[in-house]
């Protein structure tokens, strides 16, 4: 179809046909690469901080590891120090540390003499399962409440939800864990208390380390139910804070979008609410909400230390606490590094997701 010759005052062509796909991939790629570069730099900085923190810790690693021997046998101490490079200057120690890191070696735990990476690989799936479940619950509940509050703005529901949201972020996680444990386990016995599985139940065959997922993959329904029931209480307790957070921020993101002309234009076209809210409102509000979901991840990692303690959940939180209180340096470094990197990666993913959701960042 040719543009008609009648229109001599034809507006200048601003949209380039044909090459749109190629052109659109470049700005986004550049965006992603830039964020990735920032991630690498940050990760490096984190290793420095982790290293510095643990070199500041008072105490002699040789004495801690060798015990009695350290006092009697200076040669053994010297050998120990030489082996671990502790007699070299700090920057060189950092270099060695970084070298080991890049080879996936995080050192040995001073407590149990296992490789830190081994300990982490045991603990990570447990926390991952808890975290994913908790985030899932928080997002579903928090976003629904937030949309509800936005739609019923300034009515009674909205005010109640405001108090609920403030309540959610005010509750001490460890206290709620205790209360939940008492009420749902001790009193009502609806849900199990501690651990990931009942003592008599065997863990499912290992695929991912997430018991629920592994049980499903192996068709072990009984194990799945058991693992899931153990997951509910700590998961929901961990979600409480994030529900409060997400309610608030979903509400404000939705309200900001709802007052925009394009929502009004959508209603002016006669579209019903069941189309306008998900397709027009939520879609536009999602980038803002996704940022908060990134924050929610950080909260989950913080909260997991407390929740895993109360529920005896063998995850990263417990590991971190244990290594911090026993001054297990390699373990502390390993955990700090891991946690910080996860956080940074999550932020990176959030940024990328932001770009995916908002076409304006992506195309031309």
């Amino acid at each position: 179809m040719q543009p008609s010759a009648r229109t001599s005052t034809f507006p200048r062509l601003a949209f380039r046909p044909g090459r749109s796909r190629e052109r659109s991939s470049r700005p986004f790629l550049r965006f992603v690469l830039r964020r990735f570069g920032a991630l690498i730099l940050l990760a490096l900085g984190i290793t420095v901080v982790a290293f510095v923190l643990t070199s500041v810790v008072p105490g002699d690693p040789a004495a801690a590891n060798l015990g009695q021997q350290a006092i009697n046998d200076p040669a053994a101490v010297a050998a120990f120090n030489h082996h671990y490079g502790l007699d070299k200057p700090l920057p060189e120690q950092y270099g060695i540390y970084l070298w080991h890191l890049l080879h996936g070696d995080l050192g040995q735990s001073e407590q149990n003499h296992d490789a830190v990476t081994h300990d982490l690989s045991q603990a990570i799936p447990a926390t991952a399962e808890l975290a994913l479940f908790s985030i899932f619950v928080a997002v579903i509940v928090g976003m629904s409440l937030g949309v509800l509050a936005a739609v019923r703005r300034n009515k009674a529901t909205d005010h109640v939800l405001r108090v609920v949201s403030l309540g959610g972020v005010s509750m001490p996680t460890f206290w709620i864990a205790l209360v939940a444990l008492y009420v749902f386990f001790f009193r009502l016995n609806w849900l199990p208390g501690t651990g990931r599985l009942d003592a008599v139940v065997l863990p499912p065959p290992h695929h991912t380390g997430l018991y629920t997922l592994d049980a499903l993959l192996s068709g072990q329904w009984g194990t799945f139910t058991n693992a899931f029931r153990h997951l509910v209480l700590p998961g929901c307790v961990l979600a409480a804070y994030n529900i409060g957070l997400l309610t608030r921020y979903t509400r404000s993101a939705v309200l900001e979008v709802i007052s925009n002309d394009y929502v009004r234009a959508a209603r002016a076209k006669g579209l019903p609410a069941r189309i306008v809210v998900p397709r027009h409102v939520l879609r536009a509000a999602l980038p803002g909400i996704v940022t908060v979901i990134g924050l929610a991840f950080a909260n989950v990692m913080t909260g997991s230390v407390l929740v895993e303690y109360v529920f005896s959940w063998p995850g990263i939180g417990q590991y971190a606490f244990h290594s911090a209180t026993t001054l297990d340096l390699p373990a502390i470094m390993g955990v700090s590094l891991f946690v910080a990197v996860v956080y940074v990666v999550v932020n990176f993913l959030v940024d990328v997701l932001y770009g995916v959701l908002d076409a304006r960042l992506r195309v031309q």
Partner: protein
Amino acid sequence: MTAGAPAPSAPIRLRLWQRRRPLSRAVGLRHPLTLVGLTIAGAWIVIAIFAPWIAPYDPVTDTTLPALHAPSWHYLFGTDELGRDVLSRTLFGARTTIPLGLLLVGVSLLIGSTLGAIAGYFGGPIDGLVMRLTDLVFAFPAIILAMVTTAALGRGIQNAVIALIVVSWPSYARVVRGLVRQLSQSEYVLSARLLGASARRALVRDVLPNVAGPVLVLATLDLGNAILLLSGLSFLGLGPQPPKPEWGLSVAEGVNYFQYWWVGTFPGLAIFTVVLAFNFLGDSLRDRLDPQSSWSRGGDD
């Protein structure tokens, strides 16, 4: 089409004046959230001050009561495993936690705001440095960083507070830096400087008062957060040590004796109510001073 509007009046003074009047109205009785928050917070502050006179027993030395006794007329909140009155321990707990929280917020605010203001005002490499620092601190979840720091420095109150200061100052730095940057480039500051005001004068008279509002909101909300972090750390045993009557510690005891629900529930309830009060206050302050992120006018047209 019609004659222009009357000439604009001095924008700077108008802004300050407009801010002060609504503040006094907000604190008035129109907002139940403010009222509830103030009442509860006020009550706890009174308790913190007068605990020695209000509490029926000594929280540390009176260990002669029947242990793990359920709440009753004698012991309103019951007793713990060492025969101490939970009510007294809860009341005295305010004397530890609330001042520590205030201290924590105060110092973080000072350090963070100063760094943030410098970064925002001077920009360039200083700004970059401060921002990288905040990024680094933000990358570590608060508890992990605090745990590592207390591990490095040893357990106890001072080190817990230091650890938490390290974790908390970046929020203030970020907020203040953003505001200062925005304001120092705003038209009225620029015009004030064109009219001859010195850089320092512009900073003090025009920039700072407009920064105070959001910072106050942040500080109030942060107070709640600080108390949560503090009690979290002491729950893990990394803060004030026993036998100090600290709330987090008491809840930790409660976990060990969780069948005796009163041991951990009441101290935890105390934490909840205090934090809730400060969050209520902070939220209603946010309505007044930072309408963009407030609840009642959030996303307004």
